């Protein structure tokens, strides 16, 4: 296993893992833009991840040849045994277990440990080297139960029936998880979607994840149209509330669903009115718990707060190594690449706002 400028490279197998630029052979852990990129030659991934890549990049750019490998099945490539296991991050997300000459490395990709109704739960596998993310690797990040955050959202909808609640959520994974959690909490009204999150919701449903009644946020309203969607829940990409698109909504309550919302200053800076701590990444306790379960004597940390995690591992007598992979952001952060733009934002910019308050 080698660290290259493109990311992790398996030398005996001759393939990259989540490479940051097009390569001949790649294994992709999951469909987020900082892991899955268009234009590779041969791509190996779970069937759901391949479907997500086709939806995001188009049939022709999701890899010249695509090899689906369902969870738990093993194939061998140049003597390297490859198995994909659920990572619990988003639909189709996988840990990649590689075995060669009697030793095993597990590349976990991004992962979380708590239950997610929209994807299979993380399966720990004992190994010699465990490769982990460290997005929220500071002991201040301990995500509260999802049900608690969803209750805060519904509570706010009840308190402000004259306002629309706009939840900023990443298009792949977070959006569908929030919808599913709302359904579990008993919210059975239609949920309204910004154009940029529609396509992946449709895909999730076609892949067997029921999301209930979903409607697009109405477009093309005439100038002077009264504000819409009071009392309703709208899901949009995190930056949409700052665009003219938001002006059609009734006095919107800006909500953001992200692990970063733990820290007040970050929520304040983004002008969020109702921060919801809902993350698709393992929090501090979950990272340490997972590292304990896989019993690996050596831990490699791909990206995030590797300093704190490596220090905490050293207190437990485990060897940690920071890989400093570049280009590996966090999709929950504002700077991360967003879903491909739709005509929506452009439409919105052309639409005359009703009034400026």
């Amino acid at each position: 296993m080698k660290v290259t400028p493109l990311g992790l490279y398996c030398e005996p197998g001759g393939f990259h893992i989540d490479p940051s630029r097009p390569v001949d052979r790649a294994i992709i852990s999951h469909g987020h833009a900082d892991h899955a990129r268009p234009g590779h030659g041969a791509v190996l991934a779970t069937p759901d991840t391949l479907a997500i890549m086709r939806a995001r990049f188009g049939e022709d750019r999701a890899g010249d040849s695509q090899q689906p490998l369902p969870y738990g099945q093993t194939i061998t490539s140049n003597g390297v045994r490859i198995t994909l296991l659920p990572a619990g991050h988003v639909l189709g997300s996988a840990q990649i277990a590689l075995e060669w000459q009697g030793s095993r490395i597990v590349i976990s990709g991004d992962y979380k440990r708590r239950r997610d109704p929209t994807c299979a739960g993380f399966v720990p596998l004992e190994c010699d080297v465990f490769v982990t993310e460290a997005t929220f690797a500071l002991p201040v990040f301990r995500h509260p139960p999802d049900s608690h955050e969803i209750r805060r959202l519904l509570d706010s909808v009840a308190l402000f029936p004259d306002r629309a609640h706009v939840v900023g959520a990443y298009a792949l994974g977070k959006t569908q998880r929030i919808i599913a959690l709302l359904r579990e909490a008993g919210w059975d009204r239609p949920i309204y979607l910004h154009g940029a999150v529609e396509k992946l919701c449709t895909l999730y449903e076609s892949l067997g994840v029921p999301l209930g009644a979903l409607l697009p946020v109405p477009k093309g309203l005439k100038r002077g149209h009264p504000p819409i969607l009071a009392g309703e829940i709208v899901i949009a990409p995190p930056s949409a509330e700052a665009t003219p698109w938001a002006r059609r909504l009734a006095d919107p309550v800006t909500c953001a669903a992200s692990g970063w919302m733990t820290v007040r200053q970050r929520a304040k800076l983004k002008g969020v009115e109702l921060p919801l701590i809902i993350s698709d990444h393992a929090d501090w306790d979950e990272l340490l718990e997972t590292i304990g379960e896989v019993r690996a004597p050596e831990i490699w940390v791909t990206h995030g707060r590797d300093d704190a995690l490596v220090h905490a591992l050293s207190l437990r007598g485990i060897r940690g190594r920071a890989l400093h992979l570049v280009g590996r952001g966090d999709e929950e952060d504002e700077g991360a690449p967003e879903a491909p733009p739709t005509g929506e934002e452009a439409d919105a910019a052309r639409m005359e706002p009703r009034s400026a308050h």
Partner: protein
Amino acid sequence: MSVQAFADLLERLVFTPGRNAKIALMRRWFAEQPDPERGVGLAALTGELSFTTAKPSLIRDLVATRVDPVLLALSHDYVGDFAETVALIWPEREGVNAAPPTLAEVVEGLELASRAEVPALMEGWLDTLDAGGRLALIKLVTGGLRVGASARLAKTALAEWAGQDIGEIEEVWHGVAPPYLPLFRWLEGKGPRPDPKDAPVFRPLMLAHPLEAPADIAAIEANPNDWRAEWKWDGIRVQITAGPGGRRLWSRTGEDISGAFPELAESMDFHAVLDGELLVVRDGVVAPFSDLQQRLNRKVIGPKLMRDYPVAVRLYDLLLDGEEDLRALPFDTRRARLEAWAARHAPPRMEVSEMIRFASLSDLSVLRDTAREASIEGLMLKRADSPYVPGRVKGLWWKWKRAPLSVDAVLMYAQRGHGKRSSYYSDYTFGLWRTYEDGTRELVPVGKAYSGFTDQELIFLDRWVRNHTTGRFGPVREVEKSFVLEVIFDAAQLSNRHRSGVAMRFPRIARLRPDKPADEADLLETLLGMVEKRAG
């Protein structure tokens, strides 16, 4: 109910920009919380709770027993705020299933505990709360609680919830104390109105409307003898309350600011309630507002500060003389009483506001515009027969500000607004030209404005900013330096905190000047010249 519920309220207040939304959140607190919890919460919201037993160092020591120092340092570095770091990082103890404390239990616990018992008490509470609850608790007991609402807004929410007038609440406020059981009983119609007795109470101030409409001006013009004029000073409006029950200096909103002006409290050796303007006055000359700012929001007032920024009050009105309430009497009668009262008591650091004689409004207008002192904002016009009524009643008192100063400035940066304006670039930083000796010119930012424009102009500016962006810094966009704004402001003051060396008071946008080339915008010297003009 517990500290947890209060923490949820605080959290929402901190993030909610809208006034009405904040009121709705607080109303729910008064409606849903039981006694004495809601009253203790009200005290925390209005800044009436204070603890001295728990110091920040106690929190530092507690967390050190539970968290690795390297991880604590890395976390503090990331989060920034130490109390928030502790609240988030606090490792819960396995098997703790005690109920979290109520606010009332926290208050009582800290009052009864000896200094040595406080750490164990705090530790026990921290173990029962979640991160939000821990943050509220730490901030509450160490005195760092920031409430995302003013005391006044909390009282407004209380008034709206109870269907009472805010003025009524302010009148009884200083006669009640946490947890305000008699107050809530009265508001719910279950008990008598609390009697403030001798305790010094704030009485809501009478306020003025701006005199702008031609019809209103014409009405005064027609009967100038019915009106009285005084200077409108640029200080802060205060109410002075003194009597056997104590001495208080109140701000316009009923906040007790006596502590910041000990020398005034010393002067209040009488039994009366007065209305006036608090100013910094040196040798009879009123200093600019920026001097008064040196005295505001200070915890400790040293002798040097009192010497360098000597304060005085210009008295406008007499509300109560002893126990006698004069508020229903006409202005002329109150004014005569005020003059007689001042002659009798001659309190140091206080003088009666001068009445300006005039025959017509045009006389006044000349006086207003030729007044050279920077500390004069304009004139006050009061109806001779006006009673003293709380709030802003139309037609009795007018404020007649002098024409603002103005410059043509170039738009340089724009920032998105908050709340309803969060999708608009509505905060504009503008600059003026500075010329160097070698003849080159550069735009220097001189101020920031976020008001004055119409809704249509905001839409236009927002679109212009989006289409002419040259750089982005977080929420701020830098724009092409080509759009001219006519900016008006009340005064210009020298300032070493601004790169331009000058600060504007209340700048706002009067007009958009798409017709004017940026080259022809004003020079920085023009603005500096306005400082001298008004400094007198």
